[in-house]
C-alpha cells in the first residue's frame, strides 16, 4: 500500500514552513534597486476630479516620479471578465475602470495618484503634498435610491446606475407568478445579505520588474490565479504578450476570493517598472485593504415561497438588489446571477422558480466573489424563508424540508442546472445524530435555569462547485474558460514534480495532491512534490476559487498521471519482454500478470531517461505528461447544519453553544484537511451572521474601516464543532468522484445561526420577531426584543 494515499489524514507538509516563519510571501521578495509606490487615494466618495497638482510633491526627498490618471491615457482600463445579458437580451452596462482615477473619483479609496520613491516613507510623505482638486458630488449609497429617475449617476456616460436587470428563467416568470397566486400559503421575507470585508491575513502586495535587455516583464503578486492575471493584465490593460510576461504568486496568506481579481495596483507596478526601468513594489496596509480589496455579498432581497395545501413547495420568487460598488471587479457580474440564481432550487423539488436581480452601481468599494460567492446568498434566502414558513404553518422545520427534498438523481432543476448525485435525507439523519438534536430539550431547560434563552436552527445547503464547464460558462457570458491543467514530471530516479494550475493559498494542495498521485502509482506521497503559482513553469491554469481545485485541478492531474501510467507500462513491457496488455502496476511495481516477473517504478523511470534498453523506435524518451481537464458539469456538495445559541435576554448577546455540520463532499482525499476547510468556513459564516458589519455612512465614508470597528471572528466567538463527512455520494463525472469542500462552511452556516436566534426569541415569547438582519450584534438582537 502506498504511504499517505487517498483517505489518509496526512499532516500538511506546507505547515512546516508556514508555522516556522519560513514561508516566502510576496512581501518577502525584494529585488535589487527596487523603488516603492504609495497610492494617494480619494477620501471622498464621489467627486469631479478637476486636476491633480503634484508640483509641491515632485521635488521632495527621494521622489522618483509621480503618476496620475493622465499617464495611463494610452493604457487599457481594468477589465471585467464576465458579461451578463439582461432580461431584455441587452448586455449589461459596463463602465470604464481606469488604473488611476480620471475625471471623477467614485469611492473612498479610489486611487488618484501614485508616488514612486526611494523609500516607502518618502513616497508616503510626498503623497501628502499632492493636491487633488475635487468638487464633491452627492454620493450614491442606497441601491433603491440609486435606481430612481433623476438619481445622481456614478458613471456619467451610462444611462443610469443600473448595471443590469436580470431575470432567470425569464420564460418561467408567468408560470411562477401564477403558482404564487394560486398557492395555499405564501411566506414572504425581506432580508439583507450584509456586505463583508474579506480580510485575508496577508494584505495584497505587488512587485513589478522589467528587464530592459530582454524586454521581459515579471509581476510578483498575491494572487489566487497568476495565469488569469497574466491574461487580463497582459492582453487587456498593458498590451504585453504572454511570452514576455511572467506572473508569480508565491506563498499567499489567504484569499477567500479577494485575490482572484486583477487590481489596478498590479498593472501600475508592472507599468511603472518599465517606465522607470526599476523594480517597483507596493505593500498594502491593513487600512488600505479595507478600502481597496473587493468586498463581498451586499444583497437586499425579497423572497416569496409558495406552498400548496399539503405544504409542498410550489414556487419561489425573488427580487434582489446586488451592489456592484463603483466599478465592475473581475467577476462581479456573475456572482448575483449565475452563481446565485442557479442555486435557488436548493435541496428542494420546487417546480417553479424565478429570480430577478438588479445590479447597481454605488459610490462604494467594488463587490465581487467572497467565499461562497452567490451561493451563500441563495442559501440564506431559501433556508430563512423555509424556516419562517414552517413557523407560520406550525410544522416542524426539519419535516418540512424533508418533505420537499429532491430524492431522485440526476435531477434537473428549473434553474438550469442538473444535480448529479446527493442524498439529503442521509446528511439530515447524520446531522440529527452528531448534533444530538434529541438532547436539545434538556439543554434548553438547562439554559433556562441559568436565565438564558436557547434556540436551535437547522438548515440545508447545496452549492455548485468545481467551476466550471467552459462551453456552458461561455454561453453565460464568461470571457474565459474554466478548465484546469497539470504537468506531471517524473524524474529519472522516480521522484515526481506536479505543476498544477490550481493555486494553494491555505488549502493544503501541497499535501493532498501528492496523495492522489501516490494512490494511482502505488508509491509514497513523499515522492511527489507540487509546484504552482508561476506562469513560467506551469501550463495555463485558471487558479483556485469556487471549490474547484481538487475537482478540476485534481482531475487534470489524474489525467496526466494516467498518461504517465500508460507510457511507463509500455516501458515496463519492453524491459520485461512482455505484452503491454499484461503489465500491472501495483505498489510501485510493474509485473507481468500471472508471473513473478516484475520491475520497480524507479527502474522504469530511469530507463526513460537513460534509454539504453528502450523502445526508441516506438516511444520518446523522457517521462513528462500534461493534461487539461474541462469539467462536464458543476459538482454539487450538500449538507445539513445545526446551530444552538444562547441569547442573554438582558443584553441581546448571542453565544454559539453548539454547531454541527454534516456534509456530503463525495469522495475525500484528506479528511483532516477537509475538516479544517469546514472549520474555517464555519468561522467565516458565523462571522458574517454575528459579527462582521461593513458599514458606510450616508456620505460614503466607511465607518468600519479598521479592526476597532470591524469585528472579525476570534477563537472565543466560535464553539468546538461537530463535523462529519461520512455521507458520500461521489460525483459521477470527474475521475476522483470529488465535489469540493472549501466554501461549504461559509455557505451553510449563516442561516443556521439566524434560524437559531429567531427560534430562541420565539421560544421566549417574542412572537413578533420573525427575522433579524445580519450581523446579529447584541444591539440588534436587543432592539428586536424591544418590539
Amino acid at each position, binding site marked *: 500500500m502506498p504511504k499517505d494515499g487517498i483517505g489518509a489524514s496526512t499532516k500538511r507538509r506546507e505547515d512546516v514552513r508556514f508555522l516556522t516563519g519560513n514561508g516566502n510571501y510576496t512581501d518577502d521578495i525584494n529585488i535589487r534597486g527596487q523603488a516603492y509606490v504609495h497610492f494617494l487615494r480619494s477620501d471622498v466618495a464621489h467627486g469631479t476630479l478637476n486636476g491633480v497638482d503634484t508640483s509641491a510633491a515632485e521635488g521632495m526627498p527621494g521622489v522618483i516620479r509621480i503618476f496620475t490618471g493622465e499617464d495611463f491615457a494610452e493604457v487599457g482600463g481594468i477589465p471585467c471578465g464576465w458579461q451578463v445579458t439582461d432580461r431584455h437580451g441587452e448586455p449589461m452596462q459596463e463602465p470604464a475602470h481606469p488604473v488611476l482615477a480620471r475625471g471623477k473619483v467614485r469611492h473612498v479609496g479610489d486611487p488618484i495618484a501614485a508616488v514612486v520613491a526611494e523609500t516607502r*516613507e518618502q513616497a*508616503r510623505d510626498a503623497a501628502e503634498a499632492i493636491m487633488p482638486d475635487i468638487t464633491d458630488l452627492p454620493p450614491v449609497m442606497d441601491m433603491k435610491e440609486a435606481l430612481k429617475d433623476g438619481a445622481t449617476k456614478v458613471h456619467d456616460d451610462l444611462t443610469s446606475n443600473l448595471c443590469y436587470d436580470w431575470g432567470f428563467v425569464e420564460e418561467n416568470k408567468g408560470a411562477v407568478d401564477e403558482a404564487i397566486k394560486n398557492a395555499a400559503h405564501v411566506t414572504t421575507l425581506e432580508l439583507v445579505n450584509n456586505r463583508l470585508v474579506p480580510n485575508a491575513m496577508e494584505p495584497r502586495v505587488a512587485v513589478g520588474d522589467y528587464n530592459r535587455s530582454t524586454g521581459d516583464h515579471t509581476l510578483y503578486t498575491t494572487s489566487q490565479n497568476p495565469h488569469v492575471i497574466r491574461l487580463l493584465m497582459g492582453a487587456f490593460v498593458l498590451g504585453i504578450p504572454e511570452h514576455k510576461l511572467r506572473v508569480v504568486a508565491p506563498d499567499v496568506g489567504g484569499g477567500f476570493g479577494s485575490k482572484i481579481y486583477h487590481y489596478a495596483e498590479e498593472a501600475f507596478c508592472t507599468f511603472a517598472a518599465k517606465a522607470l526601468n526599476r523594480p517597483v513594489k507596493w505593500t498594502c496596509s491593513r*487600512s488600505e485593504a479595507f478600502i481597496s480589496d473587493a468586498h463581498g455579498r451586499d444583497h437586499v432581497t425579497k423572497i416569496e415561497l409558495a406552498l400548496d395545501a399539503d405544504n409542498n413547495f410550489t414556487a419561489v420568487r425573488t427580487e434582489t438588489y446586488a451592489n456592484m460598488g463603483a466599478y465592475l471587479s473581475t467577476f462581479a457580474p456573475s456572482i448575483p446571477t449565475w452563481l446565485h440564481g442557479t442555486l435557488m432550487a436548493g435541496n428542494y423539488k420546487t417546480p417553479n422558480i424565478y429570480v430577478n436581480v438588479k445590479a447597481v452601481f454605488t459610490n462604494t468599494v467594488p463587490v465581487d466573489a467572497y467565499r461562497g460567492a452567490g451561493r451563500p446568498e441563495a442559501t440564506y434566502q431559501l433556508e430563512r424563508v423555509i424556516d419562517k414558513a414552517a413557523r407560520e404553518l406550525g410544522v416542524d422545520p426539519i419535516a418540512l424540508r424533508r418533505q420537499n427534498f429532491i430524492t431522485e438523481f440526476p435531477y434537473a432543476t428549473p434553474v438550469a442546472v442538473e444535480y448529479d448525485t446527493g442524498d439529503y435525507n442521509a446528511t439530515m439523519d447524520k446531522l440529527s445524530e452528531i448534533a444530538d438534536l434529541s438532547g436539545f430539550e434538556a439543554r434548553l431547560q438547562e439554559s433556562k435555569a441559568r436565565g438564558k434563552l436557547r434556540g436551535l436552527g437547522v438548515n440545508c445547503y447545496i452549492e455548485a462547485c468545481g467551476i466550471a464547464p467552459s462551453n456552458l460558462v461561455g454561453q453565460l457570458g464568461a470571457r474565459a474558460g474554466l478548465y484546469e491543467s497539470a504537468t506531471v514530471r517524473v524524474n529519472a530516479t522516480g521522484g515526481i514534480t506536479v505543476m498544477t494550475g490550481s493555486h494553494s493559498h491555505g488549502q493544503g494542495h501541497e499535501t493532498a495532491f501528492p496523495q492522489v498521485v501516490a494512490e494511482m502509482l502505488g508509491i509514497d506521497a513523499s515522492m511527489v512534490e507540487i509546484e504552482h503559482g508561476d506562469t513560467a513553469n506551469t501550463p495555463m491554469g485558471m487558479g483556485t476559487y469556487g471549490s474547484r481545485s481538487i475537482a478540476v485541478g485534481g482531475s487534470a492531474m489524474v489525467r496526466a498521471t494516467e498518461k504517465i501510467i500508460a507510457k511507463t507500462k509500455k516501458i515496463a513491457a519492453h524491459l520485461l519482454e512482455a505484452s503491454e496488455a499484461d503489465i500491472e502496476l501495483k505498489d510501485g511495481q510493474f509485473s507481468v500478470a500471472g508471473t513473478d516477473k516484475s520491475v520497480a517504478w524507479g527502474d522504469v523511470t530511469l530507463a526513460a531517461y537513460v534509454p539504453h534498453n528502450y523502445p526508441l523506435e516506438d516511444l520518446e524518451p523522457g517521462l513528462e505528461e500534461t493534461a487539461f481537464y474541462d469539467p462536464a458539469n458543476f459538482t454539487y456538495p450538500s449538507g445539513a447544519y445545526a446551530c444552538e445559541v444562547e441569547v442573554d435576554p438582558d443584553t441581546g448577546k448571542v453565544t454559539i453553544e453548539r454547531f454541527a455540520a454534516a456534509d456530503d463532499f463525495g469522495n475525500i482525499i484528506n479528511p483532516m484537511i477537509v475538516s479544517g476547510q469546514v472549520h474555517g468556513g464555519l468561522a467565516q459564516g458565523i462571522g458574517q451572521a454575528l459579527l462582521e458589519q461593513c*458599514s458606510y455612512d450616508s456620505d460614503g465614508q466607511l465607518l468600519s474601516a479598521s479592526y*476597532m470597528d470591524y469585528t472579525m471572528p476570534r477563537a472565543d466567538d466560535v464553539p468546538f464543532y461537530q463535523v462529519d463527512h461520512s455521507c458520500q455520494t461521489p460525483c459521477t463525472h470527474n475521475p476522483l468522484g470529488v465535489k469540493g469542500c472549501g466554501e461549504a462552511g461559509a455557505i451553510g452556516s449563516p442561516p443556521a445561526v439566524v434560524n437559531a436566534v429567531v427560534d430562541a426569541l420565539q421560544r421566549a415569547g417574542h412572537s413578533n420577531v420573525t427575522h433579524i438582519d445580519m450581523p446579529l*450584534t*447584541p444591539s440588534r438582537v*436587543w432592539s428586536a426584543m424591544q418590539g
Partner: protein
Amino acid sequence: MYAFDIERPSTVSDAVKLLKESDENQPLSGGQTLIPTLKQRLAAPEKLISLTGIDEMKGICEDDDGRLCIGAATCHADVAAGAGKYPALAALARQIGDPAVRNRGTLGGSLANNDPSACYPSAVLGSGATVVTNSREIAADDYFQGMFATALEEGEIITEVKFPVPEKACYMKFEQPASRFALVGVFVAKYADGVRVAVTGASEEGVFRWTEAEEKLNSDFSSSALEGMSPPADNMISDLHGSGAYRAHLVGVMARRAVDAAH
C-alpha cells in the same frame, strides 16, 4: 509614522524637563494608543519622552492610610498580578485588551489619554482615587473633564494613583465586539462612607458617576435596589455598535450585575 526623536529619562524631574523643552514634545508611556496614532500619521511629535524607564513610577505598595498606591508606569499585567489587596481592580486590569496590550499599556497612560471607552477611568472615579502628578494631587472627581480631557496641565505627568480599598467592589464590562473596549463598563465600590458607581464607555462626556444609582445603593446595596433603572440616554454615545438607548440600558444591566458580584 513621521520621523521623531525619543528620549528615555530615568527620573520624573528629567522627564518633566524634557517635556517642557518644546510644545511639540509628548510623553510616551505604554504607547497602546499613541503608537497606532503615530502609525496612522495622526500625530507628529518632535520628540517622544518615554516614561517607561523611570523606576520611581513603577510598582504597587500600600500607604499609611491603607490605600493601594500604584505607580503610573505600572503595566496592566503587573496590576492584575499585584493588586490582590483590591481584587476588583486587579480583575479590571486582567480584562483590558489582550496579553500584548496588558504587558505594554500602563495605568498612567490610560488615565492621561482618558479614552471614553477605557476601563481604568471607571475604577479611579469609582474608587474616589487620588491622581498624583509631579506637581500636585488631584481628586478623581476633579480629574476627569470629558472625553479625552483631563485636569492635567501641559508637561504635567501622572506619577502615581492612590486607591482607597473598598469593602467590596466589582467591575462589569460589556465589550464592544470589534475593539473589545468597553461598550459599557460599570465600576461599583462600597465604602464605609458610601457607594460609588462609575460608568465608562457610554457617555459622550466620558466616564461619569451615576449618582442616582449611588443613592439607591447607599440605602440598600443590592441589585434589586436598581431594578428597572438606567441613566438618561440623552448624552450617551450612539454608533454602529449600539444606540444611546441601548448603552443606557446596558448601564443598568451591568450595574446590577456588578452589585451582585461585588466582593
